[in-house]
């Protein structure tokens, strides 16, 4: 799976959250210690030193969110006497490192608390690798209160099969990022009108978006591509394609989850639109591009738009060298439904110290800590930061981000979502490259998707 890992054209590995770390986080991180200082108000959640001396090990993706929490860890140690060690790695290797530890049996694993991506939710839960948190939440006396969270994040990364397995902690919805300066530029609007006969506006459908992006590329050529895209097999392609599929009204399976519908008329249309957009509206090489490639194209001012993760806006606007810094806005994916991803905290059955691990989750998800994390640049999953004037003043795009989370959708609830991404990515790459027509490729994909039910 190539979930967030990507190879930079500049020879180093990067992932979408590391981009956030590099971009939006750069300035913020400089003043992190001051920003993360505990407020004068007392913590609402209380802690004891029952587990003092315990050391918790966690596998964490090396990104801004991790850095933010890491900076705050001394507070937790002071409160509980529990030490925490983060093993920070790139996303690409996380699943490979986690699975053997999770399968090691009760108490035998290396990690005490899990950072779980939204497409490991079902795999980990149904494999019996993680503990249901319902009882702990009920006994927490409100320390962990799921009503504090944006409900959509609970669907995406918290609950499965009627149980709560994870506590959401970081959201990354997708949507449309576009050049607001050009959208409101009378000259640009006039040129677009002359070119297409239509008014320049945020489209309200996927086909409208593809038409607009293609028209811009036809008009401007290599000066300004209609879209900066990431069609590298498999993860970047599938993450991006989900927006086209969902917003076109399609899905991978029917609502009852009894059969794939990926290859129906809507799915095929979405696949065709996606391939059309990659091949005729995006930058050269979009069919092999990863997040870093597309962000480079966009931040250099060579693209009008990008269907991407919300944090990409923060990266571009935080890039002092970008000619389009501060000229961008975001919008829910044309058509109304984008992909919405999130991370959650979980307790593995193989955790040697689950009770101490739970103390960590109680602390890191306490309202005060969650708010301070949001202020430091984390995209929150709890509702309060989205309403906080200080947070909104600092990150005005959070309003759109919340809309994207609310209107967004995750991956279908199959156990092996990683395999779903691989299957869809492989067949969609054939559609994009022209090796197969959309119907044939999606029929083949649907056949394989059946095996995941």
């Amino acid at each position, binding site marked *: 799976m190539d979930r967030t890992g990507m190879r930079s054209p500049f*020879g180093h590995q990067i992932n979408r959250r590391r981009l956030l770390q590099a971009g939006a986080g750069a300035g913020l991180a400089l003043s992190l210690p001051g920003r993360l200082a505990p407020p004068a108000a007392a913590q609402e959640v209380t802690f004891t030193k029952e587990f003092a001396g315990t050391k918790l090990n966690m596998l964490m993706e090396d990104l801004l969110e991790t850095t933010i929490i890491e900076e705050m860890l001394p507070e937790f140690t002071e409160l509980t006497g529990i030490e925490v060690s983060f093993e920070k790695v790139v996303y690409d290797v996380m699943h490979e490192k986690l699975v053997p530890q999770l399968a090691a049996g009760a108490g035998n694993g290396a990690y005490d608390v899990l950072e779980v991506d939204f497409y490991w939710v079902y795999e980990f839960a149904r494999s019996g690798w993680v503990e249901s948190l319902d009882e702990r939440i009920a006994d927490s006396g409100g320390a962990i209160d799921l009503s504090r969270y944006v409900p959509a994040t609970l669907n995406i990364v918290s609950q499965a099969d009627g149980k709560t397995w994870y506590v959401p902690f970081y959201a990354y919805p997708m949507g449309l990022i576009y050049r607001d300066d050009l959208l409101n530029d009378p000259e640009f609007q006039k040129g677009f009108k002359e070119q297409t006969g239509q008014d320049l506006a945020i489209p309200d459908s996927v086909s409208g978006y593809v038409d607009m992006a293609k028209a811009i590329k036809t008009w401007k050529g290599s000066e300004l591509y209609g879209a900066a895209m990431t069609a590298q*097999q498999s993860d970047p392609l599938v993450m991006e394609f989900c927006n086209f599929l969902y917003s076109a009204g399609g899905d991978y399976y029917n609502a009852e989850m009894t059969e794939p519908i990926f290859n129906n008329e809507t799915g095929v249309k979405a696949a065709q639109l996606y391939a059309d957009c990659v091949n005729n509206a995006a930058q*050269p090489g979009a069919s092999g*591009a990863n997040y870093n490639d597309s962000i480079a194209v966009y931040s250099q001012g060579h693209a009008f738009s990008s269907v991407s993760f919300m944090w990409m806006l923060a990266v571009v606007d935080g890039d002092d060298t970008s000619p389009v810094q501060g000229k961008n806005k975001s919008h829910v994916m044309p058509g109304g439904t984008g992909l919405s991803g999130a991370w959650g905290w979980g307790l593995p059955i193989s955790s040697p110290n689950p009770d101490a691990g739970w103390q960590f989750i109680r602390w890191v998800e306490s309202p005060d800590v969650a708010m301070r994390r949001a202020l430091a640049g984390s995209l929150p999953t709890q509702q309060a930061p989205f309403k906080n004037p200080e947070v909104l003043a600092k990150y005005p795009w959070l309003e759109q981000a919340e809309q994207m989370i609310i209107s967004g959708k995750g991956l279908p609830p199959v156990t092996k979502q990683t395999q779903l991404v691989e299957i869809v990515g492989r067949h969609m790459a054939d559609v994009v490259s022209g090796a*197969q027509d959309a119907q044939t490729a999606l029929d083949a994909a649907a056949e394989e998707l059946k095996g995941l039910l």
Partner: protein
Amino acid sequence: MATHRTLSQPETTSLPAATTGSRSMREGRRRFGRLMTIPTLVALAIVVAFPLGFALWVSVHFYDLTKGGIGPFIGLTNYAETIAGNLFAIAARNTAVYSVSVVVLELLIALGLSLLLNLPGLRFRGVYLAILLIPLLVSPVAVGLIWRLLLHPDVGAVNWLLTTLHLPPQEWMSRPNTAMATIVGVDVWHETSLMIVIILAGLTSLPRDPIEASMVDGANRWQTFRSVTLPLLMPVLLVATLIRFIAAMKTYDLVYILTRGGPGSATETISFSIWKAAFTTLEMGRAAAASFLLLIIILVLVILLVRLMGDEEAEA
């Protein structure tokens, strides 16, 4: 027998105590020697035999990590399903295309360059050799990243060069008609050095007499190469081919970094599909079965090549 008895009898009856002692000492040494091999044998059993045996055990059981531990014995089902799977056939074909392509190209290029480097009186031989060996020192992952940058469709140096020459830029790694050729090309760039090292070592160790004799007899360079040098060099070439072929059959890293098996499954090799089975679908039984199938394929090829080598040596 009589002689034997005559010779042996005095030994047994009249050997001095010192001789008897030295025999028992030899026995003791032998026993000690055998004892000393035990740690090595145990180590080999642990690091080689056990993993292989365990993998074989896993390959004949249902073992899906998401379904708990090792499940019931299912015989050769994993093998049958792997072979019957469309993707394995594609991966096997890709692996064959890739392996044959890289080995043939690397052999030809390395042989040509080695002959040039072996020319008598060549100046700066060390410099040429050092330059040619640089790729060998770079890890496959770094090679993949370097070439990923060079072949980048938008900012890559290769497309820039093409554009400068008024040729259309290419999407090297994301189009079915160029992806496999690209990986082959990158591997040739990386691994030819190894072939050069082996072949050049062989060339420099060849006896000079037959070569000089053929020249005295009036053979030109081509005739000398074809009739004398090449036959003498054949065992070395076969070893080089064998080494590279085995490595090429197992290629995973370049595919992972450059194309992830894509576009579609255009560059998916057996090793990459094994990785996918193990870490994407978490079907360890299937992954183990595919690994053993790859092992069997490589073993068969190695046996064939070794036999061929034996025949060539016998002819030589």
